[in-house]
């Protein structure tokens, strides 16, 4: 299929590009034409953007492969060629965004990306809901872009140039107010694309409506673009706004995380749940950036590296597992024809590959060690714990509250994915749609998902190596700081300059195991402290995994030895009813009900009561209560302005009543006003 072949080739090229940039092999490219009025476009991949490009390629490759199976469902209904074109354009434009080295090329690539992604979201254009979602996405993105444009222009003012390099050079002469405005505008502007509160109402609408392979890209990469924009302005171009940025990011990030996961937990639609969960993960990333920003502003660069590193790392992990989960959800959708968890169930037996991959994704996203989500989420929380080293009380309390929110988020994420994995794949089918599923998607889909699942596992098992890659990617002065602060060079010959007594202690603890065999600095993530507490925090999921394997093997042997009788299977007992009917099963809605009850104040649902009456409308037969959860971002940020605009529009439209005398009066009035005000 064209999508798969074209996409795979392009993704491989992107991966190659990303790797060569990440390791410093690429230089500036100036395109030989100029934008009218606005200067020469530059393209350049730095290590930082190379990392993001690599990530894009790594996600796009399996997604493209997967498409070979997935896109079959559209054959004969929609033009595959159109999808291919949009898909390739989308990938290219994203590379363009990363590579852009001036405002205009950035914006042009950005907008191509936006339009292409919206076009692809509305790929099934006969469904009006898709079109609406795409339009909502486009419109909100546009407003975000406009805010970002304003931020860029403000930032470019002292430089008199739209070139990133010169903006960066002249940023120090910005006034404090301008810096504050730039931070706020770029944060909320790019925050729209990144899916941050309060302007992310489009996200849970658009992501589920897209074809699954696109949803994967949307959540796994396009949200990263928003984050890239935020970092670009607030960290690379105008670093002196770090304090405000940090505070904003910490607050908004942790709130986004908790709100995202709350809605994800109660959501019934599998893909929409994943979309909400993307809000959550991006929130965690941004909270980590926020911590980094505050540390940066307080000139604690080692800790800032931890914060930004944790953020980038979580971004990487999120891209991997979220694309995996979306692909899985797409496979379910393609096979069962529904994405509603309440109607699924028991798919693990008929879709084993999808089930396994989805489980790995769920474990990863729920931050269960030793998978990849754990490492970055752990590091994020550890970074927040480093507020111990901050002076002012307000910061400490802020960090604690953010930490508490993130902890709640992490725990709710476990709940959410327990529910979704279990209710989708386990137990028995809850509807005809689910029981009609016979097989997995074809091999290409399996390969795509397995690729990502393998990456999730590998990235989880070797966190110290991933940390070193992330370290290379850190922008600006932070490069090198993360590895310095986090991965002591245990495996480097001669201990890489670690104090000898420290090294001696840790050699006994196995930190040096693998010396000479395993490349890199070490296998343990370890933040060193002062003499009184030589280690502030430490973790090694490599070791944890090794311990787990040994313990599990030991247990398996022990049980084998101790237990004589072989296991047997039997019917489930349910008060004597056999077989157990679908309506006896606990529903997904029921599973997440505690969340719904406890956080009712946040969901603030609209409930409508319908009374069914019989016999001359005298006897109530039944009361049904419909509950509609309006996303909180809709309630607070999207609806009020749109209502206000509509109101104003209607008020102005009333001026257009069609009667000429009125129109003449307007003109006459304007004339009188102009005469009186200008000439008299």
């Amino acid at each position, binding site marked *: 299929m064209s999508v798969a072949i074209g996409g795979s080739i392009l993704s491989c090229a992107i991966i190659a590009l990303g790797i060569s940039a990440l390791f410093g092999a690429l230089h500036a490219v100036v395109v030989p034409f100029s934008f009218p009025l606005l200067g020469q476009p530059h393209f350049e991949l730095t290590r930082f953007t190379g990392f993001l490009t690599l990530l894009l390629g790594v996600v796009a490759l399996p997604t493209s492969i997967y498409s070979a199976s997935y896109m079959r469902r559209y054959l004969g209904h929609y033009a595959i060629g159109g999808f291919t074109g949009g898909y390739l354009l989308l990938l290219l434009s994203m590379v363009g965004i990363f590579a852009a080295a001036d405002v205009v090329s950035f914006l042009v690539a950005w907008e191509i990306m936006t339009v292409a992604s919206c076009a692809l979201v509305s790929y099934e254009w006969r469904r009006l809901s898709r079109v609406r979602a795409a339009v909502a996405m486009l419109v909100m993105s546009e407003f975000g872009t406009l805010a970002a444009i304003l931020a860029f222009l403000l930032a470019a003012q002292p430089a008199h140039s739209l070139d990133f390099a010169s903006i960066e050079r002249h940023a120090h002469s910005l006034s404090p107010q301008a810096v504050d405005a730039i931070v706020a505008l770029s944060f909320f502007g790019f925050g729209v694309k990144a899916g941050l509160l309060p302007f992310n109402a489009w996200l849970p609408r658009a992501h589920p409506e897209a074809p699954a392979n696109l949803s994967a890209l949307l959540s796994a990469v396009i949200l990263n673009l928003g984050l890239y924009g935020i970092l670009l302005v607030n960290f690379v171009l105008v670093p002196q706004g770090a304090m405000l940025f940090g505070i904003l990011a910490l607050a908004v990030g942790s709130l986004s995380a908790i709100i995202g996961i709350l809605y994800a937990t109660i959501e019934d639609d599998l893909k929409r749940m994943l979309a909400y969960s993307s809000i959550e993960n991006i929130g965690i990333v941004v909270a980590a950036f926020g911590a980094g920003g505050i540390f940066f502003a307080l000139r604690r660069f080692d800790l800032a590296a931890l914060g930004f590193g944790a953020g980038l790392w979580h971004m990487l992990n999120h891209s991997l597992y979220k694309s995996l989960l979306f692909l899985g959800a797409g496979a379910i959708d393609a096979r069962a024809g529904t994405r509603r968890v309440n109607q699924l169930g028991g798919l693990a037996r008929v879709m084993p590959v999808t089930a396994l991959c989805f489980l790995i994704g769920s474990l990863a996203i729920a931050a269960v060690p030793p998978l990849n989500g754990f490492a970055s989420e*752990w590091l994020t929380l550890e970074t927040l714990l480093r507020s111990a*080293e901050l002076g002012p009380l307000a910061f400490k309390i802020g960090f604690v509250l953010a930490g508490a929110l993130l*902890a709640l988020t992490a725990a709710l994420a476990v709940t959410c994915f327990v529910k979704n994995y*279990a209710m989708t794949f386990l137990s028995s089918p809850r509807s005809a749609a689910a029981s009609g599923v016979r097989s997995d998607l074809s091999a290409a889909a399996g390969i795509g998902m397995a690729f990502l699942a393998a990456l999730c596992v590998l990235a989880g098992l070797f966190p110290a190596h991933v940390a070193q890659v992330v370290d290379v990617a850190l922008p600006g002065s932070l490069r090198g700081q993360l590895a310095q602060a986090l991965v002591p060079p245990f495996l480097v010959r001669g201990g890489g300059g670690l104090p000898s007594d420290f090294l001696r202690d840790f050699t006994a*603890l196995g930190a040096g195991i693998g010396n000479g065999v395993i490349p890199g600095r070490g296998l343990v993530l370890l933040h060193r402290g002062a003499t009184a507490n030589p280690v502030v925090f*430490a973790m090694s999921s490599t070791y944890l995994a090794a311990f787990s394997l040994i313990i599990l093997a030991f*247990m398996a042997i022990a049980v084998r030895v101790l237990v004589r009788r072989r296991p047997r299977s039997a019917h489930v007992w349910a008060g004597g009813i056999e077989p157990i009917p679908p309506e006896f099963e606990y529903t997904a809605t*029921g599973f997440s009900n505690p969340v719904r009850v406890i956080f009712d104040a946040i969901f603030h649902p609209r409930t409508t009561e319908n009374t069914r009456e019989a016999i001359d409308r005298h006897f109530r037969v039944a009361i049904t209560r419909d509950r509609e959860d309006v996303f909180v971002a809709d309630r607070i940020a999207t609806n009020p302005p749109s209502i206000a605009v509509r109101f104003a529009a209607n008020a102005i439209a009333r001026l257009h009543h069609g009667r000429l005398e009125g129109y003449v009066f307007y003109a006459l009035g304007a004339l009188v006003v102009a005469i009186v005000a200008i000439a008299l």
Partner: protein
Amino acid sequence: MTIAQSLGLNILQLVFVVLLAPVFSGIVARWRENVQFKRGPSIWQPYRDLRKLLSKEDRYSESATWVARFAPYAVCLSPMLVTLLIPVLTSFPLFGAFAGDMLAAGFILAIGSFFLTVAAVDTGIPYGAMGASRTRMVGFLAEPVLIVILFAVSFVANSTIPYIVQQQWVQPPAHFFSPAHVLVLVAFLMLIIAETGRLPVDNPSGHFELAMVDESKVLDFSGPSYALVKWGSSMKSVVLYVIFVNVLLAPWGLAGTPNALALGEAIAVVFVKILVLLALLIAVEASLAKLRLFRIAEYLGAAFVVAVTAMIAAVLAP
């Protein structure tokens, strides 16, 4: 100290926890009956139960997948992993000490929880899913309390490595009575009560399915699987007790050098410390009634407030 010594001691720790976990469950069960002026079962009863269960056959529901079979192992795995990280007997770090800190321990405990709750749904009975849902509710409400406690600890000890916290936390010993310390202890105690499914959060000896939290998940487990689940949950309790007594409450009496005498002494001291803690728990349990399901949120909310207060006290401490 050599790698072999360090590894050996670590395994010893593991053996200590694995083997003694059931006896603590037995002691709790007996003491709970005792305070109600009943005789209660033998403290060795859990071992007998385990033996009986291990000799029975394993039965799974027809709909169950490999997850249901794997879950009991996962339930045992998490506390065992945590055991490797924490100071059970020695005050110096062992082989596994830096494979994870207290925060990581929280995540590690989620392995068992994740698989057990998933498996509860996998069995196909409605009670399983119900119990899973409720367990997760307690789980996610407890998590913020844990992290705030870690913040408080971190503000004082500036580390989350249990071995280092243990050395820094109550230093000098007069700090035992500092408000931060006391409040952290209270919050952590409330957390242990919630996490180990004791009154007022859950009634471990209840038999009414609709009111169960923890037990209804495992209704459909049988034989060796059930044995592993039981064992695993008692190990989890012990791990939490150990963290409480060895790291937070009274970080004294552990072996300072790797010799047999010191270790023996440490075993005894730790055993006694846990017994004291159990007595405390029984006292709490005996004086409270079970909360309604959604009141648990209020209980853990209270724990959260205590933890936050502890954290503020820690920040304000001179």
